[in-house]
């Protein structure tokens, strides 16, 4: 599917994967996240194949699907992920308030709007201390203020030495002048 993709990412870097619909961005992200296996080649994490390293413990992946359970409330969603990440219970209310969800913490997520659900899903990024974020079109359904918020979070994460790989159809570069861009070509 891909021809000779070769990429490296250092700490503090953001990599945007671009390309038209169907170019293979999502497929590439799933390979990078270890969810799919490449036909050829390998994904390395600190010079080791990801299967043999502590790569999964350093990864936070959010794909096209939000991972938000419709019957649970936003707060309960966060509690679960805190435990899953092995974190101390933090103040979920605060994170949700940052994301503009104050007052909606106790409503089943299925009653939230599309953008609000996306925000709940992205709230994981405010919790985790993991190094590598792999995000597939994180800006979907978000309004401008939420996009700004998320980009600020990205900047903060990068400045702490984290790395981000993401896809999006909206141009990013003005906010992240140092971002790498990998264009995948669509060929059929």
């Amino acid at each position, binding site marked *: 599917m891909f021809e000779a993709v070769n990429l490296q990412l250092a700490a503090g870097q953001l990599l945007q994967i671009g390309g038209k619909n169907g170019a293979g961005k999502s497929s590439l992200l799933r390979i990078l996240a270890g969810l799919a296996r490449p036909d050829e080649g390998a994904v390395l994490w600190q010079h080791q194949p990801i299967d043999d390293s502590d790569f999964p413990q350093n990864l936070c992946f959010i794909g096209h699907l939000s991972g938000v359970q*419709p*019957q649970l409330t936003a707060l309960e969603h966060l509690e679960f992920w805190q435990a899953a990440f092995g974190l101390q219970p933090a103040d979920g209310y605060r994170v949700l308030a940052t994301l503009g969800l104050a007052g909606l913490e106790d409503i*089943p997520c*299925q*009653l939230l709007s599309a953008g609000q659900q996306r925000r709940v899903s992205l709230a994981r990024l405010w919790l985790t201390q993991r190094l590598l974020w792999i995000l597939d079109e994180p800006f979907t359904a978000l309004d401008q203020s939420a996009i700004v918020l998320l980009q600020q979070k990205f900047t903060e994460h990068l400045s702490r030495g984290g790395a981000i790989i993401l896809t999006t159809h909206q141009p990013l570069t003005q906010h992240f002048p140092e971002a790498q861009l990998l264009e995948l070509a669509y060929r059929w």
Partner: protein
Amino acid sequence: MFKWLDPYAKPETLYRLCGLWFPWLMTAAFISLLIGMVWGLAFTPADYQQGDSYRIIHIHVPAAIWSMGAYSSMAIAALIALVWQVKAAQWAIGAIAPIGAVFTVIALFTGAAWGKPMWGTWWVWDARLTSELILLFLYLGVIALSGAFADRQTGAKASALLALVGVVNLPIIHFSVEWWNTLHQGATITKFAKPSIDASMLWPLLISILAFGLWLAALTCLRLKTAILQNEQHRPWVRQLVSSSLKSSVIKEG
């Protein structure tokens, strides 16, 4: 067509009406229940065949009849809710269903208790008993369905539809004793010709039936009142009601 119904369908009016009726219905139910039970259980002569065990009839028959009565009124409410989109009718379904289910349980339970001395077994799978059991399942289905949706409105409407569909079971219950040969008693008092039961037993029984009916109506009013408050809690008239009742209680205390 039913324009005259409209004013009563307004939640606020309905709430007042329920509040008005409830004490009367409840007192009437209580009094007739007392008369029926005391007369029926203590003062009527023992049956020459069944001895004293037949006295359970004073609970069994009213509960059984009104388990069906409750279902019919629920179905009527469902029809109104679906055809004329009357919200109050939706709430009425939710108000009646649990009461009806309890009546059904009482009928099943007393029937089983009566069956033990009469037929020598708690339970047989005959048509009357089974269809009454189905009635219970239908009630439970209506209750379960109304609670199964994230969107309450959808749940209410879906359960209304189910309540309507379930009406087919009512004739089956009633006529089961004629259509199949069963262990259960044939129609003795609910047939149109002269009841085949002695008057000294009939009168207390009729009073008990009346009492259960009143009881059903009273409880429905009560539950409907709560349902209206719950569903309308953000409307101004409810707020007003709450604040005025708060004030009056303050005055009383003061």
